[in-house]
C-alpha cells in the first residue's frame, strides 16, 4: 500500500488528520478495540476517501471518510454473508448483526477483514442477521358481556347524562353534601 499524499499542504493534512480521528472514533464506537486492526482499516478507508476527494475537490475529507467507513461496513457484511442490504434500514440491521455475532469481541480479527470469512464467523453473522421475532401464534381474547346490576346501570346512565352539564353536576354534588351537612346539624340541634 502506497502512503497517501493527503493534499500536501498543512491545512489539508490537518483535515485528513481530522478525518483519521473521526473514523477512528467511529470504529471505536463499533467496539473495535485492537489498535493494529483499527489502524489497518483506517488506512484502507482513507485510501478510498482520498481517491474520491481527488476526483471531486469540493468534498470534505472527514465527510467522505465517514461515508466510506459506513459503506465499507455494509459492503463487507454483504460480501461476507451473501446477504444483500439494499437500503439503509437493512444496513442498520446488518450493523446490529455485527454486535449480535460478537464481531467486536470474539471475532475481532475478522472484523472488516478481506473475505472470505471462516465458515464459523460467516455463519455467526448470518444467523444473527436472520433472527426473527417468535412466530405469531394468536389466541383470541374477546370480552364476554357481564350481566351487570340493572339498577346500577340505570344510575350510571343518569350520572353520565349529567356530564353534559358539568357545572350542574358539580352544583348537584355540592348541594347534596350541603344538604347532608344541614341534616346532620338539624339532627344534633336540640
Amino acid at each position: 500500500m502506497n502512503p497517501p499524499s493527503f493534499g500536501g499542504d498543512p491545512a489539508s493534512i490537518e483535515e485528513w488528520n481530522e478525518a483519521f480521528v473521526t473514523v477512528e472514533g467511529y470504529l471505536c464506537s463499533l467496539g473495535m478495540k485492537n489498535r493494529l486492526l483499527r489502524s489497518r482499516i483506517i488506512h484502507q478507508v482513507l485510501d478510498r476517501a482520498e481517491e474520491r476527494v481527488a476526483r471531486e475537490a469540493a468534498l470534505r475529507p472527514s465527510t467522505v471518510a465517514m461515508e466510506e467507513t459506513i459503506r465499507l461496513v455494509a459492503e463487507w457484511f454483504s460480501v461476507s454473508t451473501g446477504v444483500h442490504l439494499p437500503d439503509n434500514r437493512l444496513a442498520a440491521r446488518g450493523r446490529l448483526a455485527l454486535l449480535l455475532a460478537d464481531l467486536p469481541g470474539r471475532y475481532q480479527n475478522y472484523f472488516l477483514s478481506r473475505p472470505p470469512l471462516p465458515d464459523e464467523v460467516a455463519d455467526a453473522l448470518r444467523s444473527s442477521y436472520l433472527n426473527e421475532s417468535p412466530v405469531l401464534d394468536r389466541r383470541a381474547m374477546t370480552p364476554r358481556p357481564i350481566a351487570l346490576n340493572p339498577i346500577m346501570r340505570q344510575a350510571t346512565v343518569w350520572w353520565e347524562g349529567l356530564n353534559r352539564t358539568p357545572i350542574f353536576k358539580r352544583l348537584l354534588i355540592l348541594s347534596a353534601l350541603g344538604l347532608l351537612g344541614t341534616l346532620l346539624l338539624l339532627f344534633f340541634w336540640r
Partner: protein
Amino acid sequence: MNEAIPHPTGPHPVLPPPAVRTGGWRFRRALVFGATVLITASGGLFMGDLLWRLYGSFNGASVVLLGIFLVLFGLLAFGVMTAVSGFFIGGAGGPRINLATGLVAADLERPFGATVVVYPVFNENPVEIFERLRSVYRSLERTGRGDDYEFFVLSDSTDPENWIQEEFAWLQLCRELKATGRIHYRRRLENTDKKAGNISEFLEAWGGRYQYMVVMDADSVMSGEDLVRMTALMEKHPRVGLLQTAPRLANADSVHGRVQQFAFRLLGDMFTAGLNFWQGPSGNYWGHNAIIRLAPFAEFCALPDLPGKEPFGGKILSHDFVEAALMRKAGWEIWLLWDLEGSWEEGPQSLVDSAKRDRRWLQGNLQHTWLLFAGGIHPVSRLHLFLGIVGYLSSPLWFLFLLINTLIVFNQVFTGLTLVPAESALGSYLPLTLSANQQGLVIFGATLLLLFLPKILALLQCLFDWRRARRFGGIPALVGGLVLETVYSALVAPVVMLFHTKFFFWLLMGRKVEWGAQQRGAVGTTWREAWAAHRGQTALGALWLVAAFLIEPVLGFWLLPVFGPVVLAIPLSVWSSRPGPGTRLRQAHLLATPEELEPPAELREIHGRIGRGVTVLSERFEPGAAFEGITRVIVDPYVNAVHVTLMGKSGKQGAGCDDGTALLGERLVVEGPGALDLEALRRIAGCPDLVMDLHRRVWLTPFAELAPWWQHAIERYRAGV
C-alpha cells in the same frame, strides 16, 4: 428474535375438569365470618348502648355514628380473624395446595407446558428492569429447567429515554446470557387499555405459543426454583387456573419503605396463611408474581368496558380482581401460594408515592361496585371485590366519624345544653356496672386490642420460633422494629385517611386518574413536592385542632393524636422518604427483614451488579446523564441499529413522521436535545428513517461544525481510543 422454540404444549382446555369435592371450605368460612360477626356485634352493642346512655335515646347522629362504627369495627375484626386463622393454622392441616407438602420430586421432573414470563413495563428504570430479569433468568437456568421458559418484556414506555434504553438493555442481556430467542422485547405504539391491554395484545399475538404465563411487575423478582414449582403445581392440578404468590417487599431504603417492608414481612405470612384458610380455591389475583393457565384466561378473562365513562365506568383500571372473578366464575380454581419464599417486589418509598398508587387503586376498586352484584360471580369473589371497595371507603367514613363527633361537641357547647344520660340498656341484661366513661374506655381498649393483636401474634410466632426471630435480627431488634412500625403507622394513618378522603371526593367530582410510572427506589420527596401534596391537609389539621381546643379542650386532646401528625405531615413525609434515616435504622438492625439480613442469591446478584455499576447498559450508556437515550440513539451505531431494526421493516414509519418532525430533527442536531420538549423527542425517536439520517448527519459533519452537545457525545468515543 429467533425461530420458534419447540415446547411440549399439550392440550389447552378452556373448561376445567370435574371438581373433586374436598369440603371444609364452608365450615372454615363460617368460622371466620361467624367470629367476625360475633366480635362486631359485641362491639356494636357496647357502642350502641354507650350512645343510648349519652343521648338518652337514638337520634340521627347516633345512628350514623353507630353505622360507621359497625363498618370500621367489622373490617378490623375481619382482618384480625384472618390473622388469627393464619397464626393458628399456619402450614399444618392447611390447604390442599401447599408447596411444602404438595409436590414430590417426580412432579418437578415431568415435562412442562411452554411457559412465558412477561414483564409489562411503563417508563420504569430500564437498568433495574433488565437486571431483575437477568437475575430471574439465571436463577431459572440454575434449576436446569430454563429451556421450558421464555421471557417477554412488554413495553408501554412513552418516554424516549426509557424506550431507547430498554431496547439496548434487552439486546445486551440477550448477548450476555446467550438468550437470543428466549428473551423477547415488544413495544406498543399505542398504550390502549394500559397494563391489561398490554397483556391482552401480547396474548392475541403470541398467546397460542404458550400454555402458562407468569405475570411479573417491573419490580418483580422470583426465584427459578419457585417458578418451576409453580409450573409443576399447574401441571399437577388441572383444575387450577391461577396461582398467586404473596410477594415479599424488598430493597427499601427510606423509613417509609422499610416500615412497609418490615410490616409486610413480619405480619404478611400470617395474613396470607389466614386468607388461604378461608378463601381456599376461590382466591384472588393481585396482578403480578402469579402464574396463569392461558387457555381459560384468554377465553373468559378478556375485560369488557363498564357502562359509562371514567372514573366510574369505562376501562377497568384494577383488572386483576376482575380477571380472578371471571376465571372463578368459569369454574377454575385460584389459589394463594402463601408459603412461597422466592417471590419479591418493591413498594413505594414515600408517603407521596404511596398516595399516588392508592389513588389509582381507589378508582379501580370503586369501579368494582359494578361487579358486586353481577350475575354468576362466585360469592368469595364478590367478597374480594367488596373488601377492596370498603377498604378504601373506610377513610371517608373515618373522616365522617370525626366530623360528626366534633359537631356533636360543638352543638353541646354552642347551645349550652348538657346531656341527659340514660341508664345502660345492656346493664338490664348483663351484670355491668360501668359508668359511661368506663364503657367508652372499654370500647377504646377493645379497638386497640384488635389493632395490636396481629402484631402481638406475630411477635409470639417469633418467640416460639427462634429461627424465625433470628431472621429478623433477634428479639430486641424485632421488638424495636415493631415499636417503630407502630409509631410510624399511627403517625401516617390520619394522613393516609385524608388522602383517601380527598381522592374519593375528587372521584365524585369526576376527576379521573392519569396513568403514571411508579417511582421506585428511595430518591426522596422534595420539600416542594411535600408542600404541594400536604399543604391542604396541614391547613385542615391545624384549623380542626384549633377549633377543637376552642370548642372544648378535652375534644382537642382526643383529636391531637389524629390531627397532630397531620399538621406535621410535610416534614414527616420528607423525612420518611429520604434514604439517610432509613440507612441509619438499617445499620442499627431496626426494621430488618430476612431478605435484608441474608439476601437471597437473586436479590444479591441485582444489588451487586447495580452497586458496582456493571449493568446491561453500563457499556454504552452513562448512568444518570441527561438525554442519554436520545443522544446514544443518534450517535452510537449499535444503539441506533437496534432502535431502527425494532421499529420494523423498511418503509414502515411511525405515526407523525412528516416534514414537521424532520424540522424537529434539524433542531436536535443544531441545538441539542435540551432545546426540545419530551413530545418532540418522542416524535423524532418514532421515525426510524429520520433517526438513521441523524446518525449519519452527526458523523458526517466535520467535528468543528457540530453543536457542542454532539461534539461532547462523539468525544466519548474518541476518548476511548
